[in-house]
């Protein structure tokens, strides 16, 4: 890749959820139907770690037994315990522990007791970092933030907490308030390809007819290459039609997320994180209609956002 910065590889576990009808999960590993030639393929924890050792990323992920958050019943418990058994196999198979950081993934669905058991088990393994997995599925936001809060409370203070598959700016701000550090998501680039730009106020749908004669940049506060050069009017003509549209809006969206990360980081460092959260919410919800789940989460995080529920004057 000739990429001089950090890299993180996933274990292939997420594909278990997304390709579930093609997968058979046993204690040994996951049997997929190969998307290339249709033949059965077995991915064991050992295989996953071996491949990740070869790719050589700085952070590698354990193979976990992921279930959809909407799953109920004994399968959730089975998956959580298997994840703990598999982390030991991953640790044993990891041939480059001094060059690559193996993160464990907390599972347990939406059940606080199962999550607790998993947390305890993973923390005991003293891994370099931890992911909070099994979210970013179909669960309701209220359940989602509670699981994140429980996990951040139960994970060591001095190690990274990585919420997998989270990428909506609002979700990132909430999870950060709850004590998480790292995120990944296809959302910024995928939504770009469908013609949506991420801006301070929320999401700008560039395909909307009104954009055709809107000569403003995507986001007035953004300093990225795209916002310096282009208007909504021009990008409107490109999105969903030209590859360049996907490129330019993706560029801006990634830049937007990087700026959000920088803002979160520096506001914490400079002791003004609550003010940043307040300002963020006021821009996203000018009418004061901050969702209940956000309010509840901020309560637990100890951030006062009462002023955000008051509508802003135009």
């Amino acid at each position, binding site marked *: 890749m*000739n990429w001089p910065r950090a890299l993180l590889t996933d274990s292939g576990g997420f594909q278990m959820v997304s390709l579930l009808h093609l997968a058979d999960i046993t204690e040994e590993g996951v049997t997929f139907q190969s998307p290339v030639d249709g033949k059965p393929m077995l991915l064991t924890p050992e295989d996953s770690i071996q491949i990740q050792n070869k790719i050589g990323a700085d952070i590698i992920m354990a193979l976990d037994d992921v279930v959809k958050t909407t799953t109920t019943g004994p399968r959730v418990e089975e998956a959580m315990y298997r994840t703990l058994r598999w982390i030991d196999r991953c640790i044993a198979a990891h041939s480059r522990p001094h060059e690559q950081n193996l993160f464990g993934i907390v599972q347990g669905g939406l059940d606080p007791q199962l999550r607790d058991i998993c947390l305890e088990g993973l923390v005991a393994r003293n891994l370099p970092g931890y992911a909070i997995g099994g979210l970013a599925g179909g669960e309701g936001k209220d359940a989602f933030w509670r699981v994140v809060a429980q996990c951040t409370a139960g994970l060591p203070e001095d190690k990274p907490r990585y919420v997998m598959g989270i990428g909506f700016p609002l979700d990132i701000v909430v999870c950060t308030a709850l004590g998480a550090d790292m995120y990944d998501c296809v959302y910024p680039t995928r939504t770009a390809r469908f013609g949506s730009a991420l801006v301070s106020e929320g999401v700008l749908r560039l395909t909307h007819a009104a954009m055709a004669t809107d000569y403003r940049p995507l986001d007035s506060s953004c300093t990225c290459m795209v916002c310096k050069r282009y208007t909504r009017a*021009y990008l*409107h*003509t*490109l999105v969903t039609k*030209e*590859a*360049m549209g*996907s490129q330019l809006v993706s*560029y801006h969206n990634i830049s937007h997320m990087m700026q959000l990360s920088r803002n979160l980081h520096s506001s914490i460092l400079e002791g003004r994180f609550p003010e940043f959260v307040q300002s963020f919410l006021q821009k996203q919800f000018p009418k004061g209609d901050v969702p209940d789940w956000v309010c509840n989460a901020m309560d637990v995080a100890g951030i006062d956002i009462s002023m955000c529920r008051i509508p802003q004057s135009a």
Partner: protein
Amino acid sequence: MEFVVRTWSAGARLGSMQLAAGVQMETPTLLLLTRKGLPAFIPPDLLQNLHPDARACQVSPLHFLDSPSASIVETAGGLHKFVSMTGFGMVALARDSLMDESNGEASSKLGAAFETTSGRRVVGPAKYMEIVNACKPDLWVSLPDEVPTWAAEKRNRLSVDRTLQWLDHCLSLQPAERGNRCLGVVVGSASLDERIRSAEQTATRNVVGFSLGGFGLGEDASQRALQMDAVIAKLPKEKLRHTSGLGLPEEVLQAVEAGVDVFDSIYPFMLTKGGYAMTFPLNMENSPGNLDTQPSASELAYIGSDSAKMNLRSVAYRLDKSPLVVGCKCYTCQRHTRAYIHHLINTHEMLSQTLLEIHNTYHYLEFFKAIRDAIKADKFLAFRNWFTSTRKETRVHSPASKSPTLVLH
């Protein structure tokens, strides 16, 4: 626009063209392909330093019929501002080879017919100039009624008449304050008489240069040479000549020898879309001296490559750590390997197209530079002959013998 011919080598000429303030180019040269004003896959920050000669683009007014419309470009202050290409030359020309090769069948006195993403559109001079004037390009080619070589005699004659009428109409709609920026199109298809008539008539108009139309539409290459010579013989020597639709390096060489100065082509784009890297050797000094180190023509053919292009979809490149072209100084070759680009193509990543379009455009521009260097050294014919001979060489590897037999034909 200023254009001055500086020197000649056989029929080829070296020129100096100033399209706009700060946009000075030597000719023969290439206009980069654009869609709605920007390259297909190369974003503006990578375009800035793509190549010293990547300074001008072609742009088709057909991309500005609906989204965006002419009035939107006008409100935005013109094309350069709208697509953030200030500092680049923009040359407007009607042909959009990616969408449609015009056969002239649906054209009428109202305008030329084109297939666009919003269906068939008939565009007449008034509409055409509305878009051109809104865009304010540095040069614009007048609207032609192009027909292919198999058009009937009567239809061909009509195309010459119409193209002249439309040229006059377009010129009348050119605002005086912008100065003269028109390249008049010469048509006439396969008929030498009509070509000559079109050229003679167009030469009497107040244009800054000419566009040789109706080429790259499936005509016979040997006929093309005759037609180009016939046309150019009737055009004033000091004025600029442009042509669209040619692509293969041999086609460019033939047109340069005839006296063409500026080209636009879909060739780098088509290679990119197909997953090919442009690889033909660029000049006599750097060409591989020892043919033994190069794959034979049959080995290349087996993996879908040839001496001009490399098929990066082939598994032959799966572990190949070389750059696309060894010694190439483009952004892609300085950073990435054949193996990586092969992987990107296999995983359907858009980055493959960005990296390939960068290399293919750079390589093609280097070819134009090699042409200019040859003209400057008065060695154009030697260069042309060398180039066409390397393309025709094949090495025949018989399994029985170890030493290859060189066959020239």
